[in-house]
């Protein structure tokens, strides 16, 4: 019990302190039209709950689709690059370059390809954002195997495929999960930012943009809170899956 308390207490204390600071110092200083108080945001959240909840799910679905595609491709690419090392050196600069293209540059192109109102365009944006971190982390995991672990398998005359299956992939799992966790947050951001360039009114990004334009800042922040919370929940979900899958991990469940 004390362990749970110890883990959560600092976060809660900081949360409480932050909220108080915000409500009584920061918001009054900046004024209502720049930064609403937490109380106003909560009120707006309550009033518009139904709309925001549905918008959140709509956007989350886009994020999930993009996450699945981007992470899937990232892992496959990493497997290929680890298998054929020469490809790795040759293609890496291009991956780094593609990653350096800012989202607002390729979002319009995705919208053009898949259609402004089509959720697929937002999924594509989310997928592109997820691809690179998953690729980098998975590659690092696949190549982080100790030489002796490979030598051992060679002493058993194991084939390359068996080495991959039995050693490289399990070793890579922690790294893969790191990449996936980064991707959860990016997929949500990708979906929302994609919606900024045009999308269905049901989408969270459109809600945020509209409320900013209409100067309804409490609503904008309420929508941001929903977006952020869903991103965090997604991150936590992958964390749970990680704990479950790697129950053999040191920090995990003890026998």
């Amino acid at each position: 019990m004390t362990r749970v308390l110890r883990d959560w207490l600092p976060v809660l204390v900081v949360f409480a302190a932050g909220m108080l600071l915000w409500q009584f110092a920061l918001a009054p200083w900046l004024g209502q039209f720049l930064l609403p108080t937490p109380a106003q945001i909560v009120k707006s959240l309550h009033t518009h709950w139904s709309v925001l909840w549905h918008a959140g799910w709509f956007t989350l679905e886009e994020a999930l689709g993009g996450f699945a595609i981007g992470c899937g491709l990232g892992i496959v690419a990493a497997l290929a690059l680890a298998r054929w090392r020469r490809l790795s050196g040759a293609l890496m600069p291009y991956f780094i370059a593609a990653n350096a293209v800012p989202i607002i540059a390729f979002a319009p192109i995705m919208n053009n390809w898949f259609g402004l109102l089509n959720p697929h365009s937002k999924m594509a944006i989310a997928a592109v954002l997820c691809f690179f971190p998953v690729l980098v982390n998975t590659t690092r995991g696949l190549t982080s195997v100790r030489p002796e672990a490979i030598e051992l398998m060679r002493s058993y005359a194991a084939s390359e495929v068996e080495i991959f299956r039995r050693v490289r992939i399990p070793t890579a799992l922690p790294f893969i999960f790191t990449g996936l966790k980064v991707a959860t947050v990016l997929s949500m951001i990708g979906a929302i930012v994609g919606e900024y360039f045009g999308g269905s009114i049901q989408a969270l990004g459109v809600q945020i943009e509209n409320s900013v334009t209409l100067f309804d800042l409490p609503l904008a922040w309420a929508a941001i809170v929903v977006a952020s919370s869903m991103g965090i929940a997604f991150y936590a979900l992958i964390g749970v899956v990680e704990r479950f899958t790697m129950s053999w991990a040191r920090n995990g469940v003890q026998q």
Partner: protein
Amino acid sequence: MTVVELKGVSKQFRGGTLALQGIDLTVEPREFVSLIGPSGCGKSTLLRVIGDLIPPSEGTATVNGKTAERARRDRDYGIVFQQAVLYDWRTVAKNIELPLELLNWDRRRRKERVAEMLDLVELGGFEGHHPWQLSGGMQQRVAIARALSFEPALLLMDEPFGALDEMTRERLNSELLRIWAETGSTVVFVTHSIPEAVYLSTRVVVMSARPGRIAEVIDIDLPQPRESEIREDARFFELVTRVREALIRGGVEA
């Protein structure tokens, strides 16, 4: 038929380092041969040449009458490294099972053999544990059990007890001798420790500093089976001194 035969083996690494030069060595069945020498003398490299994990630049390595490569593919040997190299995501039992899985043994046979091996290294009851739950000495015992699980005639060991404390090391030395006697295998053992080499071996091969050559081969005529009291025997000290002097002549600092 000799188990291991090395003729004129040399190894030069890319970049110019000459690790081994002109090694001639034969190992007969049921021998326990130690390789000892100063750091960098190539003893680990030599072990890996025998195991076909590193190809020699010159010379031939024959294991069980076949090329080293054929012997590796036929899984004629088991190897133990200084780090136990156990896979964290497998239990102790599954770690020992690994080579048997690769040999496509069926489940029942695997389970039986794992139980046998755990008895052999006296770790019965630890099947379901994970490597990090075990001490260093226990992890090495699992590594030995794994190396022996498919009953290879040859056991290659690269300073397996090097990372352990003196007491554990002495105990594991006795364990290893018991296992060696019970399984009737041949052992090639790389070590840094002169007393360990003398205690365990039937023959000690002393290597010179880089480039590694064989400086001297010393027969250890202590009685078998070796009890731990033998470490206090006068003959033991004589042999230790002989090995030490051979090492100094070969280029180790006193």
